[in-house]
């Protein structure tokens, strides 16, 4: 709402500067967002919240300012007596949706451009001047907050107005903007003897529009039910100054004043008294405004606010706001004025009292109640632990939108029955590329990688923790599993300390470091079948017997589909954090550290390429000897010193007894047995 200060001063002399005025309004709930200079005047740009329809006018703001400053409100004079009959009959067929319909007939007006001063004010408030008649209706709308509509009287057929909802008879209307519109079901229309002439409270019809040739006018002021107006406006995709006010709740009581003000202005501006004839009027008011009576205990006000406001002060505040009040024994009975449709119950009244009393006068005190403090909760701690672990491995935390491009599913070559194809589809996406909700985080990270690459960054590690969304049954909420995904690429040649490891192992190392941090020991990796990963450089994580993620090198085909130009291998991983959370072990139960020394043996075997280190280690660990404590791979060799198609792997095995020091002889027996059996199991031979 834009309020020229000069216009406001026609209704009140606040006796304070425009800055002080802005501050007072802001601190009572009418936030002045800016003060704009407009010629010699200053415009207050006020953010009027949806509940305060009464403040969508100069009068409304003046009224509020009067409450805040005590300065008296200067209202235009009310109508001097009843107008004669209008010669028009009004029939309201739905008195719930239209509770009052009034009008005035004005004859012999000269339609033409409006005066400069009025045009300036309209423009200062963001409205375009049209002609003197329409300008007056807009001017009164801004000034008093009540929308008016002017019909060309001579185009209204049959001398009657019918207010009714759209039905078989009333099906369409051509509105002022020249658009032929089909009336939505339930839309309230104004009709003459032949059909709809206006969309009630939203926009007039083209056939009865006031034009240069218009001489006689029927000026309408009515009250329409907010929800109905909003529903119709939304269905038609229309929002006008008029609908904006009606859907928030107009003041049914100001109708006579608004008509009077507009009639006098038209008389003045369209020919002057003597020429223009203010003729008869009509006012059909079947459902009289009946304000609710709200009971408020003064103790309750102070109990909710944590304040000590005297009853007298509460009564004073409410009276100044125009509320009817009476009280006895600490109980206030109050009724809001017709312009405060937003005040319905006790809580609303408490807010009114607090607002005018001043929030800054209510003391601040920390609550004494010591409620059950669950702390952050283990899941919150878990997510922090995950973030910390992944950062230690060099991954920075990324945050992406939860949206996904439908093409990403194709780029990943997911099979038709892959769950990740069950994406949630948005009905109103901002763009097609953001029309799905993510079922995997990886495509977002690929875009991040490209963004960074394009800006010259060579070594990139990014990880994101976020929910993905898997559609299940129609009409139900999707599943929202929490995932951690990572992406990495590094430039080998320029790194200062050479690291010869395959990129795959760096990514896998990050995953293993995370699992170590979480103390999840029951885990292994098996070759992965993810269609977008390099089949020879990818693995699924199996923990607690379930697949709960993958790590691998992005396949060249996928990289190409995502339009990645670089040659370097790109590693990705994605883990199911909900599953890992469930696998978190209970707190450690301390076991004594070993008392007796271990004996180590190293063994190097030459085996076929296809034999996996993990298989060998598992074989050793499962070997039937209680003394085998640990086995680990420490070397891998492929090259000229071993036959083609084979590789050499070296393992370190640690033997220990819990109750004594083992002897070399004892171990020799077990170890040679193990070696013999291992060679048979793997089909390998000892490396010379």
């Amino acid at each position, binding site marked *: 709402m834009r309020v020229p200060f000069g216009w406001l001063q026609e209704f009140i002399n606040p006796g304070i500067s425009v800055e002080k005025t802005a501050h007072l309004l802001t*601190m*009572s709930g009418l*936030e002045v967002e800016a*003060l704009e200079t407009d010629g010699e005047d200053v415009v207050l740009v006020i953010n009027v*919240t*949806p509940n305060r329809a009464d403040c969508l006018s100069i009068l409304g703001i003046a009224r509020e300012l009067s409450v805040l400053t005590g300065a008296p409100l200067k209202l235009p004079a009310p109508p001097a007596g009843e107008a004669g009959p209008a010669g028009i009959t009004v029939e309201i067929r739905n008195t719930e949706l239209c509770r009052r319909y009034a009008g005035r007939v004005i004859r012999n007006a000269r339609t033409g451009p409006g005066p400069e001063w009025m045009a300036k004010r309209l423009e200062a408030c963001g409205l375009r001047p049209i002609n003197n008649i329409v300008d007056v209706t807009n001017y009164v709308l801004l000034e008093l907050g009540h929308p008016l509509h002017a019909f060309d009287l001579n185009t209204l057929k049959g001398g009657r107005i019918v207010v009714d909802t759209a039905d078989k008879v009333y099906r369409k209307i051509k509105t002022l903007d020249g658009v032929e519109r089909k009336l939505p079901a339930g839309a309230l229309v104004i009709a003459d003897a032949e059909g709809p002439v206006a969309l009630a409270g939203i926009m007039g019809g083209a056939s009865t529009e006031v034009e240069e040739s218009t001489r006689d006018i029927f000026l309408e002021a009515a009250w329409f039910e907010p*929800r109905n107006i*909003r*529903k119709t406006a939304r269905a038609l995709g229309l929002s006008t100054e008029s609908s904006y006010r009606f859907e*928030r709740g107009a003041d049914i009581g100001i109708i006579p004043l608004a008509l009077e003000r507009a009639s006098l202005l038209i008389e003045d501006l369209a020919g002057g008294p003597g020429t223009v004839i203010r003729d008869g009027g009509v006012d059909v008011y079947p459902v009289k405004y009946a304000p609710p009576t709200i009971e408020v205990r003064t103790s309750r006000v102070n109990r*909710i606010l*944590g*304040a000590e406001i005297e009853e007298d002060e509460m009564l004073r505040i409410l009276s100044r706001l125009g509320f009817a009040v009476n009280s006895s024994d600490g109980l206030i009975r109050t009724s809001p004025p017709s312009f405060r449709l937003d005040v319905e119950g*006790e*809580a*609303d009244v*408490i*807010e009114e009292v*607090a*607002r005018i009393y001043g*929030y*800054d006068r209510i003391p601040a*005190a*920390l*609550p004494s*109640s010591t*409620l*059950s*403090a*669950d702390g*952050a909760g283990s*899941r*919150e701690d878990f997510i*922090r632990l995950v973030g910390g672990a992944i*950062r*230690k*491995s*060099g*991954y*920075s*935390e*990324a*945050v*992406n*939108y*939860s*949206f996904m491009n439908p093409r990403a599913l194709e780029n990943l070559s997911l099979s038709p029955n892959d769950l990740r194809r069950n994406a949630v*589809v*948005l*009905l*109103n*996406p901002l763009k097609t590329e953001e029309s799905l909700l993510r079922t995997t985080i990886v495509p977002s990270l690929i875009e*991040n990688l490209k*963004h*960074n690459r394009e800006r010259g960054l060579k070594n990139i590690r*990014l990880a994101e923790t*976020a929910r993905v*969304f898997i559609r299940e049954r129609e009409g139900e909420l*999707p599943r929202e599993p929490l995932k951690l995904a990572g992406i990495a690429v590094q430039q080998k040649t320029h790194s*200062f300390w050479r690291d010869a490891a395959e990129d795959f192992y760096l990514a896998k190392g990050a995953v293993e470091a995370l699992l170590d941090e979480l103390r999840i020991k029951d885990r292994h990796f098996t070759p992965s079948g993810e269609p977008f990963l390099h089949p020879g450089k990818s693995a699924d994580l199996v923990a607690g017997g379930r697949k709960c993620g993958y790590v691998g090198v992005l396949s060249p085909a996928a990289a190409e589909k995502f339009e990645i130009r670089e040659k370097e291998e790109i590693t990705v991983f994605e883990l199911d954090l909900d599953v890992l959370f469930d696998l978190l072990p209970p707190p450690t139960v301390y076991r004594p550290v070993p008392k007796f020394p271990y004996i180590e043996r190293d063994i190097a075997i030459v085996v076929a390429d296809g034999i996996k280190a993990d298989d060998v280690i598992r074989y050793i660990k499962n070997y039937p000897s209680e003394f085998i404590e640990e086995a680990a791979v420490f070397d891998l060799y492929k090259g000229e010193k071993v036959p083609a198609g084979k590789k050499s792997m070296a393992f370190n095995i640690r033997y220990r007894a819990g109750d004594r020091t083992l002897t070399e002889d004892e171990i020799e027996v077990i170890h040679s047995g193990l070696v013999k059996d291992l060679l048979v199991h793997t089909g390998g031979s000892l490396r010379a």
Partner: protein
Amino acid sequence: MGGVNIRKSFLQELGPVRTISGLELLRVRYLGKKGILTAELKKLGGLPPEERRSAGALLNESKVFIETELAARRQELKELELREKFASQAIDVTLPGRYTRPGRTHPVIRVMREITGIFVAMGFSVEEGPEVELDYYNFEALNIPKEHPAREMQDTFYVSPDIVLRTHTSPVQVRVMQRKKPPVKFIAPGKVYRCDADISHTPMFHQIEGFMVADDITFSHLKAVLESFLHRIFSPDVPVRFRPSYFPFTEPSAEVDIGCIFCKGTGCRTCKGTGWIEILGSGMVHPHVLEMVGYDSRIYSGFAFGIGMERVAMLKYSIDDIRLFFENDLRFLGQF
């Protein structure tokens, strides 16, 4: 040879010795069984008793002198040898250490964790709710029926007519109250969505919802909790003000401003000249919201608030473009 001459010739010979082995040869040459000084000592027996005493004393002094000199030179040479060894082993200590450069925390996540920590310390628990939410929880149960003008305050992404991307974290209030009996006291951090994208709006951002309901909670408590939070997240002397506002699910409602941290209240571009910056929305839980979940609003009351994380992060780190948060440019992320 007299003691004095022995010392003189020893010093001459000691002069050029630069190795431990050379030093050993010199020791044998003077102090060994057939050494020069040993020979002189043996000659003492042939001297008359009065000469023997003084000559003996002189020779003994020379012996001590030689031993001391040898020990000193030995020490010197050892140190020299060590220095040479160290010099030959020296590396360039200015080369970078070998480590995995740790990744950085996203500024929004950082702020979210910090704020969560502050409220957890104040006894709030942490709750979650779905990001794809029923219209009922996002609007209806929060006193925003269909055809309510307040729906216009939030542009909504729809999945179906009844399912939306939550536009705020407030639906968690309702879900928690349905599950728990009062008193409840929690925060709910998470992502929210608005169908809006321009220079100052992104279609997704982060909020923390705060909620506390018991049989004695007042607006005064709301003020104190939020003031103490804002003092901890910004600075203990930042001015805080509460002004009336409107949210359908709170009544009375309050917008909370802090004194502009850039101009200290004198007025600048960030605060649009007002000296104040809007930081969060809050209010007393609307009785309708309590009644919808079966809480007796005559007994229970409480407050709710919602804080935008991006906004806090922008103020805290002087970031002027909200879109930077979602580009994940490492030159940006690396600064936090």
